[in-house]
């Protein structure tokens, strides 16, 4: 059995290598490592389809450097060892020079340190939120090969703290989900709110999928907080909120973006949530976003609601534009050109086949461009991170209404103020 599998691999690998040895041999391959099965399978499958959609649109505009782009998808099953192997196989056997993925930080990080950086291949994640990436980048260990189109937690804690303090709350309890996402957000929130003049009465972590959170809620109630900052996902978030309210906690809730969900509102009961406020990454008020949403609806017969869809589209498009701009396809040239196709001084270009065709014309004329995509204008900082505009919202009856909007520039200004 070993021999048979070995043979199949050799044959398949040889055919693969033959077609991708040179710099601009057709087709150009783009690797994707996403969890299309396992615990994240539902989310990953839609992300994978949207990534393919971005490739199809690029191909409609003539592909990269005259070559059609081939999207090679590998499943991580949500496991780091499987993801690392898939990435290595894409790099070595398929000859890809850029990887899209993964979703969870626990898979993206091993892929980055053991495959992408040593092999000098660019990795762009749609969805990994861990602060460890920023730390690694600051230490120079990503060598610039790491990017993500998912706006980091940095802005989430800033806007959460601003919302809390602006509402007049001074003693806030924090309950957060014990994942890299929740921990990073809660820690930053503690620092941010202190700078803005508020204070924390307690920081309580909870583990996911428990029957009851009475112990955590009781602990968070100590110190008589006048508000609760809740970082949770809908099912557990509803359990926590019900217990919080029934044990006498205040209904001055500030909640993170994942709780802007009808599942959560219904499970708690909207009538109990009338003093709740929340924030979310805003769809930027830009024609580029509307046009992406329309194209998506036409293709998938439904709106692009769900995590990672806008950001994976932009991850794919930015990488392909960087390939087009660099004229050859190596990890180094993609890395060096990603900022040139998202340059703030460049001519703006938009998603979709026409936009990409226009971008290619401009690049052929030697102009710099600024890709304004499905998540708005991307601007990667030195660590490969991006910021996104934010909005605040509340419930009015059963209706979810927007109460405020901060553009990318305003968010960046707020963060500068907090970090400065």
């Amino acid at each position: 059995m070993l021999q048979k599998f070995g043979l199949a691999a050799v044959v398949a690998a040889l055919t693969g290598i033959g077609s991708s040895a040179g710099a601009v041999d057709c087709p150009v391959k783009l690797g994707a490592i996403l969890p299309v099965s396992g615990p994240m399978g539902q989310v990953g499958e839609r992300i994978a389809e949207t990534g393919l959609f971005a490739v199809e649109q690029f191909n409609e505009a003539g592909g990269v450097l005259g070559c059609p782009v081939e999207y090679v998808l590998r499943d991580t099953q949500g496991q780091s060892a499987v993801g690392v192997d898939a990435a290595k196989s894409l790099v070595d056997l398929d000859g890809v020079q850029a990887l899209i993925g993964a979703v969870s930080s626990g898979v993206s990080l091993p892929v980055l340190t053991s495959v992408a950086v040593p092999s000098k291949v660019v990795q762009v994640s749609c969805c990994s939120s861990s602060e460890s990436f920023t730390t690694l980048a600051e230490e120079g260990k990503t060598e610039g090969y790491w990017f993500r189109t998912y706006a980091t937690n940095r802005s989430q804690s800033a806007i959460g703290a601003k919302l809390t303090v602006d509402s007049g709350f001074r003693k806030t309890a924090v309950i957060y989900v014990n994942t890299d996402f929740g921990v990073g957000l809660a820690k930053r929130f503690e620092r941010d709110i202190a700078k803005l003049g508020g204070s924390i009465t307690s920081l309580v972590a909870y583990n996911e999928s428990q029957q009851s959170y009475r112990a955590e809620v009781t602990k968070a109630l100590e110190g008589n907080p006048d508000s609760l900052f809740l970082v949770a996902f809908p099912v557990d978030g509803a359990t926590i909120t019900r217990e919080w309210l029934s044990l006498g906690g205040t209904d001055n809730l500030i909640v993170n973006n994942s709780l802007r969900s009808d599942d959560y509102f219904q499970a708690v009961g909207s009538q109990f949530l009338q003093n709740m406020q929340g924030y979310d990454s805003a769809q930027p008020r830009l024609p580029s976003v509307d046009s992406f949403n329309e194209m998506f609806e036409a293709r998938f017969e439904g709106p692009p609601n769900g995590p990672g869809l806008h950001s994976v589209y932009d991850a794919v498009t930015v990488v392909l534009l960087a390939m087009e701009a660099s004229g050859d396809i190596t990890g180094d040239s993609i890395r060096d050109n990603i900022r040139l196709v998202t340059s703030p001084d460049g001519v703006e270009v938009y998603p979709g086949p026409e936009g990409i065709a226009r971008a290619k014309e401009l690049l052929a004329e030697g102009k710099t461009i600024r890709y304004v995509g499905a998540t708005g204008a991307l601007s990667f900082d030195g660590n490969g991170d991006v910021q996104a505009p934010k909005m605040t919202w509340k419930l009015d009856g059963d209706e979810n209404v927007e109460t405020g909007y901060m553009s990318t520039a305003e968010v960046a200004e707020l963060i500068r103020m907090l970090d400065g």
Partner: protein
Amino acid sequence: MIGLVSYIVFFLILSLIFGVAVLGLNLQWGFTGLFNAGVAGFTAIGAYTMAILTGPARDAVFGGFELPFVVGLIGAMAASGMGAAIVGLATSSLRHEYLAVATFGIAVTIQLVCLNWEYLTGGTLGLIGIPNPSKAWADGPLAQNALYLLMVLVSVGLTFAALERIVKSPWGRMLKAIREDDVAAASLGKSPERVRLEAFVLGCMIMGLSGALYVSFIGYVSPWDFLPILTFQIWTMLIVGGSANNRGALLGALIVWGVWTMSGFIISRVVPSEIQAQGGAMQAVLIGLILVVTLLIRPRGLIGEELHVSRHAGP
């Protein structure tokens, strides 16, 4: 062609690291009949010990001693061994499925400790920047990985040779006697409890070695690497390869990890891209199918136990 060689080196590193853990489990289940369903937990202890001993210093996190690789390996084995001794003493009265339930629970507990004890483990962010010694001694990913493969091969070779010697020694025969009938073994003056504990500790130390090798290679450790699926994978490798045979244990690691990864490779080549997002389910089906067929054809594993008859037993 370079790409293929590079990938095979990478594949061998990962599968042999799994192979080390399978050897540890084989000592426990194959030779002694101990149903350890907590493989992931003992691998995690070794992995985190390695990260703490050899990793760089971090604010607000314990450790970062930047000790040499070999010290890390020894420390990892010692820590897993100590953990196993505590667990082994606490569960010494448990057999079979009761031991399985207990060890499974312990592995889940260890994973949760890794997730929550931020000062020691970095919590959910994990520990980053664990050095890979091959990067200091070689240039380029292929040379580095080839060097690391060599180090893994040495570890596997030493573990394999030691285990082969152990199981053929009088102590090894005692393990089998206890596995087959511990009342009979006790009637000959042996102490099944003590021997079981020794085999359990030794097996877990080998699992700790496996975790340490993985962490140094990947350069990162997080609680998400030690979910129960890892225990399942290690068990599958042992059963497919053939328990109570150390060659079978290593072969099982190569085959099962090969099936696991190759199925994804084949699907990415064969399935049209429009429906590849559904390919994950097909991969799971393919893995399950191949494993079931293997077990139907070779119920005792690819290489089962070699049967020995005493030289002194005459007709």
